[in-house]
């Protein structure tokens, strides 16, 4: 081949083009993370301590786990507004089971099962009934909030078995929190699924052009269904970890507005609400960026409300960068 080969597109990149891929997709973001880590490490007291870094990763996991689920959903140009409320709702109901039975295993299964149930409702409505994702998940969000509030009546569900805390909110070697390990492990597995399996490739086909995907023999209905179930499952894992960390489950775990942080993480990581785009690595970094913002603002004692403004500006800037990048490609 006479000409130099162009790098493969987006997600299908394989090893030899790893550097190229970074250049295309996440280089700016990774650079931003590194630079900000260095800058904050020097300027912000207590930032570069091991404790704080893991603290930061724990924060990132709360955003990151549902964001991984949302990445799958965004690739199909879908949306799931119910992720954070699902997380709270399933944690509350599951913890109630755990509290009653004092059985950690049963409780955790209950949390995951309930979260998956809501995912199933979302998936069924979008895939089978062909409803608009935003509206369906909005209704489910309302339902989640309703159930959570109805059950807790403004309190929270505590008194969970000790083993639950011991397993999920301990730290490996006393340093690495279990939740961070679970987060990174999940991210790794989901990355493999998204980039290297038939399902992942079919998912992208569905997202890029649903009609063409169907002609290619992809069961798009199944794909659409499965991603919302995955979303629910991610919310469930996140719910388990958070309940263990807070030693209780309450409505404040997943306020409606938490969705904004989640979608920000995805979009920072290169996913697009138009569909067809998204990587787990990007989302991972995106959620870390979101965590850094909150973390630094906390450490600097900046007025909490400033973080809102900063986050808003960052979202718009990232989207604008994406616009510029696409324009460049078109030329």
């Amino acid at each position, binding site marked *: 081949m006479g000409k130099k080969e162009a790098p493969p597109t987006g997600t299908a990149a394989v090893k030899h083009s790893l550097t190229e891929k970074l250049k295309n997709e996440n280089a700016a973001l990774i650079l931003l993370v590194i630079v900000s880590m260095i800058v904050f490490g020097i300027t912000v007291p207590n930032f570069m301590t091991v404790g704080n870094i893991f603290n930061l990763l724990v924060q990132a996991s709360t955003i990151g786990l549902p964001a991984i689920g949302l990445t799958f959903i965004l690739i199909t140009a879908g949306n799931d*507004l119910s992720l954070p409320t699902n997380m709270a709702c399933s944690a509350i109901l599951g913890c109630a089971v755990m509290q009653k039975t004092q059985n950690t295993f049963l409780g955790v299964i209950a949390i995951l099962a309930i979260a998956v149930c809501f995912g199933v409702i979302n998936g069924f*409505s979008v895939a089978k*009934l*062909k*409803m*608009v994702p*935003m*509206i*369906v998940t*909005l*209704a*489910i*969000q*309302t*339902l*989640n*909030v*309703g*159930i959570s*509030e*109805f059950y807790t*009546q403004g309190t929270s569900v505590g008194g969970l078995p000790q083993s639950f805390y011991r397993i999920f909110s301990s730290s490996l070697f006393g340093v690495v929190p279990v939740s961070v390990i679970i987060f990174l492990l999940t991210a790794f597995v989901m990355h493999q699924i998204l980039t290297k399996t038939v399902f992942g490739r079919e998912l992208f086909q569905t997202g890029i052009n649903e009609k063409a995907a169907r002609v290619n023999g992809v069961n798009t209905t199944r794909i659409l269904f499965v991603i919302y179930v995955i979303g629910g499952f991610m919310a469930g894992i996140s719910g388990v970890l958070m309940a263990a960390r807070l030693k209780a489950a309450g409505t404040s775990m997943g306020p*409606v*507005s938490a969705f*904004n942080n989640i*979608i*920000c993480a995805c*979009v920072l990581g290169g996913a*697009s*609400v*138009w569909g067809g785009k998204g990587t787990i690595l990007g989302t991972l970094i995106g959620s870390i960026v979101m965590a850094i913002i909150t973390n630094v603002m906390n450490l600097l004692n900046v*007025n*909490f*409300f*400033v*973080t*809102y*403004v*900063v*986050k*808003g*500006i*960052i*979202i*718009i800037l990232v*989207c*604008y960068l994406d*616009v510029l990048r696409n324009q460049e490609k078109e030329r």
Partner: protein
Amino acid sequence: MKLKTKQISVKDFLIKYALFILIIALWIVYGINSPHFFTIKNLRSLLTNAAPLLIYATGMTYILILGEIDLSVGSVGAVASAAWILSMTKLDVPLAAAFLIALLIGAACGLLTGFMVVKLRINAFMASLGMQFILRGICYLSADGEQILTPKDVHTFANYRLLTLSPLIYISLSIAAIMMLIYKYTAFGRKIQACGCNREAAKTIGINVDRIKWSAFIISGMLAGLAGSLQCVNFGILLPGSIGEGSEFLAITACVLGGTSLMGGTGSIIPGTLIGVIFYYSIENGLGLLGANVYLYPIVRGIVIYLAMVTDSLKFSVGRRKSKGL
């Protein structure tokens, strides 16, 4: 094609009007169980409560018909109402003039969102989400995170009655009516629908799509400013965290319940959005009259909205099948 006469089967009829059937069924249940549901007094309080949402949703209808989305309206309302209250308490601006300031601030926010969507070509969902963050932060900052009691003028305004009706009802209904007339009977309104139906075609025949879109965002922002201020009137207090919180999604829900398509191109303010808003509020209003547990409200709301959307999607799929049969 002409030979095909209109044969409406019972099933098609049920599916087509499922939403209305659902509404009426709900109202009948409420009406039977509570003697207070179908009273003027109840309708009055329902409309007063619904006034801000009706205004939010009116602006949102324009945006949705254009095939865009604006998630910032709630925060715009918060910032505008903060400006309204603060200019009265801090600067002693009279109520009406302060109102104008709120509207201008709302319009300015819409202008900015519109700029990002139209000029910078940022996806409207994300641009308005960013604006939502920024404006919410600004609202908190301007109020120092505190609740601010509304001045006396506002209470006088809230308790004023014209023909036993709150001014909120007049304002919201007349705005909905005006916006409906603009949509239906002016070139601007027609061009909005044209852009929503087919953006490329609109461009080809010389409609300035960007200007139409930008105007719609400004209008939506201005109406959001008004709606936020009226929410403040209803609360009787400036709560920087609660004014407009989630209003954008409520507005979208109301629009969609009223038959506006998220894909753009079709929708109506009266009757569409108005019905959507009233339906939404009557869910809770009725539960309140039935004396249901307050914590039950969101559950019922979620289920009813979900069912309404299911019936709507059935209608859509039937329509799709029909159009294919042509």
